[in-house]
C-alpha cells in the first residue's frame, strides 16, 4: 500500500520559535513559543501523510512552514531536493508551484470580492508562464469540472455557493498549478457531516488522477486513518510517534497516541461500555515553557524519573517496527481492546 515513489518532500530538524518580547521601545526577548521544535519526516510521490494532534501541538505552524509562509528558525524543508527555506524572490515563487494548500474554513479562504473564475485563475495570473492568457478561462472551467462544479458558474461569487462547494473552489485553486504536494489543513472539519465524505472522496480521486502527495492535517482520527498511508502524531511541537496507519491505529506505542485514540468516540453504541478509555488529566502545558525531558510526562501515567531527565528520541524501539518517542514504548491496541 505504501507508495514507493521518489521523495518529494523532506523535512529535517525543523524548528520554529516565536519570540516573546517585553518592553515598548526597546524590545527584548524574554522567551519563545516553541511551536515546532525539531520535526523530521519525508513524503513520497503519491503518498498521504496524516498529521494528528490537538490544538497547540504545532500542526498549523508546521503547515505554514511547509508553505514557506513562515521562515523556520532552523532546519530545512526540501521539495524535490531543494531547500525551500533558503530560497527567496523569484526562486521561491517558482518553487511555490510545487506545493499548494487547501484551508480549513471555506468561508474565509476565498476573497469575497472576487469571482470564482478570478479566484481559481489567480494562480495563472501570478505564474503567467503556466498558462497563456487566452487559455486561462478554459483551464479554470476545466478545473471547475474536475472538482465537480458547474463550469458555467465561473462568474459567480463565493457567497453564492454552499460550504461544500466553496471547499471545492479552494481545492481547484490549490490544484491549478499542478503541484506535487498539497497541504490539507483540516479540509473537512468546517463542513457539514453529510458533505465531508464527498470532499474526502474528491481529494482521494484527485490524488489518484494527478499523482499528488498530501500532507493531511486533521483532528478527526477516523478521517485521517481513511485517507493516510502514514500517520504522524504531534504533541507540543514534536512528533511523538510515526508509522503506517495500521501501526498507529492498531499498535500505538506512545502513551499519548494511546490516550488520543481511546478518547475518540466510536460510532457504535454497543461498544460504549466495553471500550478502554484513557482520560488524560489536565491540559497540555504551554509551548512557551514545555516540561523538561519528555514533554508528555506531566500527563503520563507511565512517567518515571528518567522521563524528566532525558528526552526520548523518535526512534524504533524494541517490540515495535515504527518509531516512537517514549522511553517505555509498548504496543497497546486501545481501539480493539474491547474484551
Amino acid at each position: 500500500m505504501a507508495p514507493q515513489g521518489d521523495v518529494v518532500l523532506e523535512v529535517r530538524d525543523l524548528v520554529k520559535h516565536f519570540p516573546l518580547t517585553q518592553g515598548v521601545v526597546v524590545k527584548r526577548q524574554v522567551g519563545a513559543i516553541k511551536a515546532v521544535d525539531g520535526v523530521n519526516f519525508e513524503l513520497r510521490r503519491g503518498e498521504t501523510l496524516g498529521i494528528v494532534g490537538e490544538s497547540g501541538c504545532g500542526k498549523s505552524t508546521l503547515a505554514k512552514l511547509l508553505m514557506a509562509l513562515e521562515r523556520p528558525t532552523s532546519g530545512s524543508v526540501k521539495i524535490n531536493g531543494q531547500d525551500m527555506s533558503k530560497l527567496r524572490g523569484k526562486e521561491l515563487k517558482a518553487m511555490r508551484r510545487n506545493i499548494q494548500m487547501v484551508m480549513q474554513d471555506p468561508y474565509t479562504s476565498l476573497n469575497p470580492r472576487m469571482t470564482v473564475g478570478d479566484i481559481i485563475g489567480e494562480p495563472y495570473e501570478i505564474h503567467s508562464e503556466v498558462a497563456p492568457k487566452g487559455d486561462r478561462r478554459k483551464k479554470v472551467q476545466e478545473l471547475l469540472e474536475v472538482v465537480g462544479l458547474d463550469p458555467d458558474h465561473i462568474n459567480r461569487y463565493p457567497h453564492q455557493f454552499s460550504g461544500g462547494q466553496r471547499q471545492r473552489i479552494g481545492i481547484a485553486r490549490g490544484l491549478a498549478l499542478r503541484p506535487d504536494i498539497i497541504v490539507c489543513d483540516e479540509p473537512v472539519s468546517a463542513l457539514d457531516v453529510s458533505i465531508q465524505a464527498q470532499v474526502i472522496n474528491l481529494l482521494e480521486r484527485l490524488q489518484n488522477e494527478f499523482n499528488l502527495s498530501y500532507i493531511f492535517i486533521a483532528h478527526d482520527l477516523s478521517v485521517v486513518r481513511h485517507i493516510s498511508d502514514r500517520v504522524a502524531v504531534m504533541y507540543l511541537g514534536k512528533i511523538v510517534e510515526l508509522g503506517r496507519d495500521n501501526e498507529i491505529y492498531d499498535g500505538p506505542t506512545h502513551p499519548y497516541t494511546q490516550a488520543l485514540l481511546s478518547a475518540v468516540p466510536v460510532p457504535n453504541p454497543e461498544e460504549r461500555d466495553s471500550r478502554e478509555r484513557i482520560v488524560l488529566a489536565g491540559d497540555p502545558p504551554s509551548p512557551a515553557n514545555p516540561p523538561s525531558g519528555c514533554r508528555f510526562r506531566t500527563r503520563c501515567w507511565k512517567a518515571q524519573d528518567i522521563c524528566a531527565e532525558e528526552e526520548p528520541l523518535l526512534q524504533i524501539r524494541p517490540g515495535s517496527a515504527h518509531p516512537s518517542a517514549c522511553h517505555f514504548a509498548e504496543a497497546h491496541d486501545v481501539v480493539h481492546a474491547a474484551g
Partner: protein
Amino acid sequence: MTEMISTQSRPAGEAGRNYSGSLLEVDNLLVEFHTRQGVAKAVNGVTYSVDAGETLAVLGESGSGKSVTAQTIMGILDMPPGRITGGEIRFRGVDLLKLPEAERRKIRGAGISMIFQDALSALNPVFPVGWQIGEMFRVHRGTSRAEAKKKAIELMDKVRIPAAKQRVNDYPHQFSGGMRQRIMIAMAIALDPEILIADEPTTALDVTVQAQIMELLAELQRESNMGLILITHDLGVVADVADKIAVMYGGRIVEHASVHELYANPAHPYAKGLLESIPRVDQKGQELYAIKGTPPNLLRMPSGCAFHPRCPYRRDNCVTDVPPLYEVDGSRRSACHYWREVLDGTAG
C-alpha cells in the same frame, strides 16, 4: 450545599408536581424566521421528550433546526427575527410558552439550563469566573456575596477545576478552552436544574478534552438524575452517551429511536446515509459512501420530503407528499414513506 438547594421549592410550581408525563415535552413546535429573502421554517413540527436521568441526543447539521429548538425551550430565541407559530413546550406538564416572562425566568437556570459551544463568548470577560458562578445564587436565591463565593468554589471543585480556591477570582481568558467549558457547566448546574441542554458542548474542544467533558457531564447526570439534551452533529459522541436519539433534517425530526436501534438498523435514508459515510477500517482505500447534494436551504425547501433530492429511495410521491412520522415500533418513528425498505436495506 445540596441540602440547601433541595429544600427550595421547584420553580415550575405545585401544579406540575404530580404530572405523570415526561419531564420535558416538546410538542409539534413551529418556529419561523422572517428574513429579507422570505420566511424560513426553522423548526417545522418538532416533537420530542426527555425524562429525568435520560439522555436525548438531537443530531443534525447546520440549518436542521436543532439549536433553534433548544433556544426556544430555553426562551432565549431572538424574536424577531424568530417567531413561534405553534406547538407547546411542557415542563412538568406546564406549557412554558404560555407562562409570563417572570415565571419563565425562574425556570431558566433552576429548572432548565443550557451550555453552549463557545464558552469564551458565553462568559462575561470583565467579571471573575467565581463572581459569575456566584451570580446564579445571588440573583435566583438572594444569597449573600460571601456565601455565593463559597458556593462558587464548591461548584468549581465539583466540575474539577484544579485549585478552585485560588482561581475563583481569575477571569475567563485566563482559563483554557476545556476549563472554560467546565466553568460554564458549573454555572449551568449551580441551581441543580432538572434538564440540562448541551448545545455542541465539545465541538470546539480537542478530543482528549472532549472525553473529559463528556465524562464530567455523565457523572453529574448520574449524581443528580438530570435529563440531558445533547445537541450535536458527532455520531461518535451520540453513540457514547445517548439513550435515545432524534435525527433532525430541514427543521423536522426524520427519525426517532433508541440509540442501539438506530445504529444497528436506521429506518430513515438520511440517518442511514450518515452512518454509512463514516470511514470504516475495512473500507480503506475505497470510496466512502457519500450522501449526494447539499443540505436544504430553509428559504427554499424542497417539496414533499425535504430529503428527496438527495435520497436513494426516492419515488414519485416523495416529491409531492410530506411524510408523517410513521410509527415503526414502540417509540420508534421514521419520517420516510419507505421506511420498511430502508430497514430491510434494499436500497433504491
